């Protein structure tokens, strides 16, 4: 049963990268469709809509970061991979904030980005304001990233 510890910890790391990555892929794809629509009519707006398209992509990076740190901590990338079941479950739980919040915030941020792309299509002079709306959603992805990172680092020092 002790061998299950590493399995749970690895599952947490994988889900962190997987869910946040899927959310970002869907989000960037959706915003990309809207961006392509604007560029079809006005190629001069490419630079502005590209920035907005990329905003939902950050969650995938956060997921990758948490997964990488977790893999390092549990010894998968080198060192001792022998961890208890309790610790394995703790790592799993530590990865959940970025997995769940990363996925949903990427999708929601994409919708805000699409709306902002529509705004830039009509009012390119309002690009700065258009950036802020989807960027607000980023706050919650960053909070989830912080919790996951703090938890993953903190678990290493717990003797269970």
């Amino acid at each position, binding site marked *: 049963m002790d061998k299950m510890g590493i399995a749970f910890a690895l599952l947490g790391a994988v889900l962190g990268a997987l869910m946040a990555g899927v959310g970002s892929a869907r989000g960037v794809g959706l915003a990309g469709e*809207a961006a392509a*629509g*604007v560029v079809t*009519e006005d190629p001069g707006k490419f630079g502005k809509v590209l920035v907005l398209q990329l905003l939902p992509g950050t969650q995938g990076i956060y997921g990758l970061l948490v997964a990488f740190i977790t893999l390092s901590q549990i010894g998968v990338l080198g060192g001792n991979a022998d961890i208890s079941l309790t610790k394995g479950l703790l790592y799993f739980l530590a990865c959940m904030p970025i997995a769940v919040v990363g996925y949903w915030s990427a999708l929601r941020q994409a919708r805000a980005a699409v709306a902002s792309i529509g705004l830039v299509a009509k009012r390119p002079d309002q690009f700065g304001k258009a950036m802020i709306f989807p960027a607000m959603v980023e706050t919650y992805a960053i909070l989830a990233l912080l919790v996951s990172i703090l938890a993953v680092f903190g678990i290493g020092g717990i003797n269970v």
Partner: protein
Amino acid sequence: MSDTQYAYAVARIRSKELSLLNAQAMEQLLSAKDEEECLSLLHSRGWGDAKSYDSPEKMLEAEREKTLALLKELLDDLSDFSVFFCANDYHNLKAAMKAVYSGTDPQGIFQSGSTVETQTVLQAVRERDYSLLPEPMRVPAQEAFDALLHTGDGQLCDFILDRAALLAVKSAGEASENELIREYAELTVAAADIKVAARACATGKPFPVILRALAPCDSVNIEELAQAAAQGEEKLYQYLRSTPYAQAEDALRESVSAFERWCDNRIMRAIRPQKYNPLTIGPLAAYFLARENEIRVVRIVLSGKRNQLPEQSVRERLREMYV
């Protein structure tokens, strides 16, 4: 189809909305000294094409074709838009019947933006093979053409097909999942019923005749409407006050065309929130209706300039714009 499937289409529409005529552009058109200057202004905004430089009707038709081409490019399937096109099918059917009946050349009588090919409609009427038409059109087509052949009464033929067209609009609206399209269908049918009732009331038609001409809808009880119309104008207005169209009373008292303007303005107000909708098919439907409204308003202005009507008279006929 998921709402997010329209992200590309809606973004293109957002860019296209920049070239819609706004109130300022309408003022420019109104202040033009004649029709020629209006046409020149419109051409400078990209209206029409090389072939339509001197012909207002060709220019408006070219604009309509541009909108249809854009929608066909953006949507693989235009069935969601059948609510806007099915009335054209019935218009073309009426035109084909009258052309065949009178033996005249049907060239130039058909409307674009129909779901059935005009040659198919013409062939169906000529050969009386109504199986060539979509199923909902077959029975009214046969009934209308038989009526035309037996009585020679073009109005009776129109009467049957106009009602069938309204039923088709209602059915297309009910089939749509989009709230805007459903609202458009409901308002179109209800407005047509009110117009028919008002005209029938003015000409003193009896209750059974009025009732037969009305198409059922959710916001108006057609039996009560027909009953009120048969009893006179005041009863009709009194009934209207109990419906969602109470505010149309003043317009209807003025004239049927004022009521039509009221209905068009109401549609424009209903579609305006779509300017802020980033996804769904709603903004595409709104753009189509905005373009139709724009073409209608430009036609009014051009006609006013051609007939040298006073600016105030033209202004009274104008509709609200989408942007």
